[in-house]
């Protein structure tokens, strides 16, 4: 995976590692793979490379291979002409790399992916910026509020995290239709925004709570009002947290299918995820086009993940584990 940003040394044993074993390390190491957390299982420098360590590494890399095979599959299928794939993409007798499938998917007559990607971008960018702004304001408000209603309101917001989109679908469709927001990106953006608010408020509130209180108090004494503190102190200090929230929301909004499905049906306005099912033939499946479209659609979230990996994972951990 060339996309993955974090550089890490490969599991090739360096010759220098085969140094003399520590005194007192005569006991055999616990079996690896069973997940023994004992420090003895770590390949410490200056320790003999043991079978257990080799086994653990082999197993780990096999698992990695197993996990990446499906992705390799669609990538190979997208990159190679149909003729080569009759006996499966894993046949490597003759490998021709061509952009043909991508071109066909991009310019598909009924559901061109190019248009879909463009539409998705038009939706996703405001769907990330808007909730970030609104939720961070709200999160700060909740954190510093002393009003009694804040507790039940916050409980309600947490509860909303569990509500499935199906629960709002029909009335939401009607409301937006009455407002003339069907088939409009504005309607979808507002929906994504509202839907992102509960988790973002919760996440950012918890993030803001980790900032040093005194800095805020210093700003208060320096004459800053609530909004000024928010803008000049809280937001600049929360950039990592905001990056996490943005990375998560960007992918979730991009990956959304259900909301787009009910709110956009004008063919030229469909977002990328909506077009993929349309490329699936009724009887015959054109795997070249379908996989190329899939690769195109997956590329954006993978790019976000690769660029903001640290924030992405931290955000996910922070959001769920507090």
């Amino acid at each position, binding site marked *: *995976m060339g996309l*993955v940003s*974090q550089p*890490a040394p*490969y599991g090739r044993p360096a010759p220098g590692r085969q140094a003399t074993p520590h005194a007192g390390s005569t006991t055999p190491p616990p079996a690896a793979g069973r*997940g023994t*957390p*004992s*420090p003895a299982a770590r*390949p410490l420098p200056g320790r003999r490379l043991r079978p257990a360590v080799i086994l653990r590494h082999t197993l*780990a*890399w096999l*698992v*990695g291979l197993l*996990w*990446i095979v*499906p992705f390799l*599959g669609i990538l190979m299928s997208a990159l190679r002409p149909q003729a080569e794939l009759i006996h*499966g993409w894993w046949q490597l007798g003759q490998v021709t790399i061509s952009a043909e499938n991508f071109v066909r998917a991009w310019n598909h007559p009924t559901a061109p992916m190019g248009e879909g990607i463009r539409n998705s971008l038009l939706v996703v960018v405001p769907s990330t910026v808007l909730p970030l702004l609104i939720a961070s*304001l*709200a999160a700060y408000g909740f954190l510093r509020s*002393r*009003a009694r209603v*804040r507790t039940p309101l916050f409980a309600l917001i947490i*509860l*909303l995290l*569990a509500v*499935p989109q*199906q*629960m*709002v*679908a*029909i*009335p939401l*469709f009607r*409301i937006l239709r009455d407002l003339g927001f069907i088939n409009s990106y504005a309607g979808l953006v*507002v929906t994504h*925004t509202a*839907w992102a*608010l*509960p988790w973002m408020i919760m996440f950012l509130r918890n993030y803001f709570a980790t900032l040093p209180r005194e800095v805020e108090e210093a700003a208060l004494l320096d004459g800053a009002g*609530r909004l000024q503190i928010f803008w000049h102190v809280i937001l600049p200090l929360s950039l990592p947290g905001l990056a996490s929230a943005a990375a998560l929301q960007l992918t979730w909004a991009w*990956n959304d*299918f*259900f909301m787009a499905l*009910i709110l956009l049906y004008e063919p030229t306005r469909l977002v990328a*995820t909506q077009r*993929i*099912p349309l490329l699936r033939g009724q009887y015959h499946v054109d*795997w070249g086009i*379908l*996989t190329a479209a*899939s690769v195109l659609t*997956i590329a954006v979230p*993978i790019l*976000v993940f690769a660029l903001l*990996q640290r924030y992405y994972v931290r955000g*996910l*951990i922070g959001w769920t*584990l507090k």
Partner: protein
Amino acid sequence: MDLRGARARLWADPLLLAVPALFLILVLIVYPALQTLGLSFLSKDGAFVGLKNFADVLSDPETLNLARFPAHTPPWGSLVHNAIWILLHLPLTVAIGLGLAILLRDVRGSAILRSIIFLGMVTPMIVGGVIIRFLFDENAGIVNAFLRLAGLQALARSWTAYPDTALLSLILGSVWLWSGFAMVLYSAGLSTIPRDYYEAASVDGASPLQQFWYITVPSLRPVTSVVVAMTILWDLKIFDLVYTATLGGPGGSSMVLALQMYFYGFRALRFNTAAAVATVLSLFTLVVGIAFIRSSRREE
């Protein structure tokens, strides 16, 4: 404290900053959700019919087909399918997530391996559905190539196209996609357990297995409850994956609640029935959500 001061403070309360957010949440989530709840008690003409819609939904074989369960192949009804999904997916997620987290802990290049496994979480589920179909395709699918290689010719076919294997292939695919979530959380959890605990335990003569059981597992309890809650919620809300891979078919054999609601509401235009399905689904997710909040409160 004079009244003027109190009122001034109320108006100055920072909660005012949450007004735009609360407005959007109320208009676009709370209000529609309550309307859906209301719809579920009404007939098509708007007359109050009590629980009739729920009775209809639950007696519909599309939801609950106990005549076929478990002796015959699916369809068994969306409710049963969701339940089976959880029953299979949840233990696998916990076991694989924890196993991978522990396996990758001391492996060189684990950052790369973690990213690979985590890719499933980044993938749009609509693409996830395509990949599942592709994996299990009779000719293009590598799973069937392996089965043939293993001499299991009988099993080599398009799994998503047959009632007896469609649901299973989706569940297996969801394991592949979702394990990264549990792994990342468990990895984070593992890194918070101090090494001293293990060192103290091994000085006390605890075997690696005992250490795992008496130190690792209890320390990870909060993580496990997150993984369990999120996995159940994900399984209940599953939609896109099924939509692209099977569209609930063949013959409803992989139908799930969320998809069923969509079909009722947006294809058959049976809004009230759809609302009843959505309400049932929400009931389940809220139970899980509340149970989770209560358990995490207890731990604090």
